[in-house]
């Protein structure tokens, strides 16, 4: 950007959007700053939704990230329950759902993802997805009626929801289309351990099957027909089969939105336009390839990079990925790339002890480290991974 921006607009008011806005202020940006979100709430944190908020361990207000005073103090104008519907990069305007057009000279796109849905059945009562606070509170209300619950999909969200509801003592079935839970993310070895953890806690785990259709009666879900011809009775169904980037509003803008907002290594999508978080597909200089990540850590770190670059820093974004999941009091953490196609090597502890570190990589080159109840031992490997050389930015 040749001149300093005077109005930066951040579209998307979750952790990426909030972090971008706060970073702009931290870096000394003193112009107008508007943060727009389509939910009725001030920015809140999502990881607790499928954990503490779902089980009721936390009041919903504990997920809030800042008080309204803090936005005033930082001079961030937060517009809630407003949805961006169109972007005109030529005129540098964003149109909102009420027809208002907001002019910007710097834009951060942080609209995140939307949960994928089954082709049919979502019109039935008792069928849930879990992405927002309101989704979570709706499901939590339903759990108070002690339904028999089936979770469809065994990725991070699906396995955390299954663990949470099982912890509440509910009759829980987990439908896993792959060979084991999380196998698509962490490979079959870790996946089978996750599967055993769920089975040990009394979850009925169905692997290698998908859902053909949902059944209902009087508008309420009654169960699921599975691809192997079997039927599962259920009073509540949570569909957690992944998500898609929320880029509908960018159609016609001229931006490339092929599986996310396509950006360069600096998180820049077009002059004056940056993207961060789940929605951003940026050129990862560490891997030398376009990448989109749906992890909480990435949302904040990428937002910092995008905001700094919007102000002219010109720093390629080359993060070391980190994610964690908590299930039944066990904590699984991973740094780096834990490719599901490679066999991890256990270097510390053992699955039998319920505590181990496993390394992922190929040809003796370590790309990722996973710790299962092993935070302290994992730290050494994390430090080594951070020191791995980063390929030159494009």
């Amino acid at each position: 950007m040749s001149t300093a921006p005077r109005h930066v607009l951040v579209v998307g008011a979750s952790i990426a959007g909030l972090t971008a806005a706060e970073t702009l202020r931290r870096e000394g940006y003193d112009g107008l700053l508007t943060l727009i979100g389509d939910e009725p709430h001030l920015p809140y944190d999502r990881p607790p939704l499928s954990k503490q908020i779902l089980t009721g361990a936390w009041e919903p207000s504990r997920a809030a990230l800042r008080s309204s005073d803090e936005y005033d103090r930082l001079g961030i104008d937060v517009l809630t329950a407003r949805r961006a519907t169109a972007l005109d990069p030529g005129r540098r305007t964003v149109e909102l759902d009420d027809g208002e057009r907001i002019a910007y000279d710097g834009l951060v796109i942080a609209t995140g993802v939307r949960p994928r849905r089954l082709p049919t059945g979502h019109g039935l009562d008792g069928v849930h997805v879990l992405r927002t606070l309101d989704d979570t509170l709706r499901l939590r209300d339903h759990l108070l009626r002690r339904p028999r619950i089936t979770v469809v999909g065994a990725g991070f969200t699906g396995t955390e929801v299954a663990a949470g509801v099982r912890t509440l003592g509910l009759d829980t079935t987990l439908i896993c289309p792959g060979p084991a839970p999380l196998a698509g993310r962490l490979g079959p070895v870790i996946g089978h351990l996750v599967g055993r953890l769920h089975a040990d806690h009394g979850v009925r785990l169905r692997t290698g099957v998908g859902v053909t259709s949902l059944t209902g009666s009087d508008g309420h879900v009654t169960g699921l027909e599975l691809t192997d011809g079997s039927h599962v009775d259920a009073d509540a169904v949570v569909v957690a089969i992944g998500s898609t980037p929320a880029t509908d509003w960018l159609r016609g803008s001229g931006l490339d939105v092929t599986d996310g907002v396509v950006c360069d290594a600096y998180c820049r999508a077009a002059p004056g336009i940056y993207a961060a978080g789940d929605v951003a597909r940026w050129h990862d200089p560490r891997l030398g390839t376009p990448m989109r990540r749906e992890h909480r850590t990435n949302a904040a770190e990428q937002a910092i990079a995008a905001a700094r670059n919007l102000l002219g820093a010109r720093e390629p974004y080359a993060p070391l990925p980190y994610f964690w999941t908590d299930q039944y009091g066990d904590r699984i953490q991973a740094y780096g790339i834990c490719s599901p196609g490679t066999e991890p090597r256990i270097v510390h502890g053992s699955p039998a002890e319920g505590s181990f570190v496993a390394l992922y990589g190929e040809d003796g080159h370590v790309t990722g480290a996973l710790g299962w109840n092993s935070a302290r031992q994992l730290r050494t490997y994390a430090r080594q991974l951070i020191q791995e050389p980063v390929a030159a930015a494009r």
Partner: protein
Amino acid sequence: MRITLDQDRCCGAGTCVLTAPDVFDQDDDGIAVLLDAQPPAHLAAAVRDAAARCPAAAIRMEAE
């Protein structure tokens, strides 16, 4: 500058220890430990960075 750390939120990523090692440490379970709740001014930028990068939003800062 006064820092508060909510250990109940902490996910054990260790980001704070890497970003501001004079102010944060981790216990054996990986849970962050606050070494200095009122660090000197020259560490303020590192602590702000740690707070922004914390994946569990467990670090809060208040100016005095």
